[in-house]
């Protein structure tokens, strides 16, 4: 019984975080831009534009020749629509959810979503750190290892 209550509390807590983040209970993000999905999604899931501020995306796109240990350069022609998409859909864009930016210091430019306070708050409070090191997961940046719908912007507890 104690276990069931534990699981129930855990689920409710997760649900609470989802609701708090989305405000609607629907955790699916809007459709990902096709150019962004094609180019950036070739190596990793197209990480949601909505989960980093504009300044972060700018720095990432400005240093694609040294992209987390790999060269990921794009032609200026390929880069242009991606830049425009990320800029207009970033966490601090007009369309952004202010809760995603909570506790991000103005002088902080996170380069990984896993460095964002909202991400740490949700994941590290509930999931053991070692779970991210499991061989099937490889890294916390491999969202799809747990969130099956990650590639389509679905990060709910059941996705």
């Amino acid at each position, binding site marked *: 019984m104690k276990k069931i209550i534990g699981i129930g509390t855990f689920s409710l807590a997760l649900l609470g975080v989802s609701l708090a983040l989305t405000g609607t209970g629907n955790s699916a993000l809007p459709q990902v831009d096709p150019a962004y999905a094609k180019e950036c*999604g*070739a*190596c*990793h*899931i197209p990480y949601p534009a909505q989960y980093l501020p504009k300044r972060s995306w700018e720095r990432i796109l400005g240093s694609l*020749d040294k992209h*987390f*240990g*790999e*060269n*990921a*350069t*794009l*032609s200026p022609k390929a880069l242009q629509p991606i830049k425009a998409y990320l800029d207009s859909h970033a966490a601090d864009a007009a369309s952004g959810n202010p809760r995603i930016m909570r506790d991000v210091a103005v002088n902080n430019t996170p380069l990984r979503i896993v460095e964002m306070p909202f991400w740490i708050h949700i994941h590290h409070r509930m999931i053991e750190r070692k779970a991210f090191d499991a061989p099937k*997961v*490889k*890294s916390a*940046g*491999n969202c*799809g*290892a747990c969130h099956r719908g990650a590639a389509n912007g679905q990060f709910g507890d059941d996705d």
Partner: protein
Amino acid sequence: MKPRHFLAFSLILLMPVMAYAGAAQKPIIDGYMAAAKAENAAFSGFSADRGKAFFLAKHDASPETPSCTTCHTADPTKAGQTRAGKDVAPMAVSKTPDRFTDAEKVEKWFTRNCQSVIGRACTAQEKGDFITFMASL
């Protein structure tokens, strides 16, 4: 041997090499062939064996990606995986027939991956050898 016979004999010798690259890959191979001749007057054709050695070689330009095999695995007929955990379709043309058929895509990935793994641009001969190897499997 008469010059004409010699020419015919040479063509017969070259045939297996030409047969390596799939028909769909020929335009891209031809492009690198012209570039390789321009780079090196002594260039005498691409080699699947050289391509294989190049693919398997270990480099020290980057601790994250010391070899092509870091992501593609040592068996190009098998799917690989990026460091971020995404599947990469097999490089072998027999498994992924549309490999090396889009010149822009091929150049994009050689540009990135040669810099990542070797720390410099690849030569046209290295690219042609690589594709010839992948088309031979």
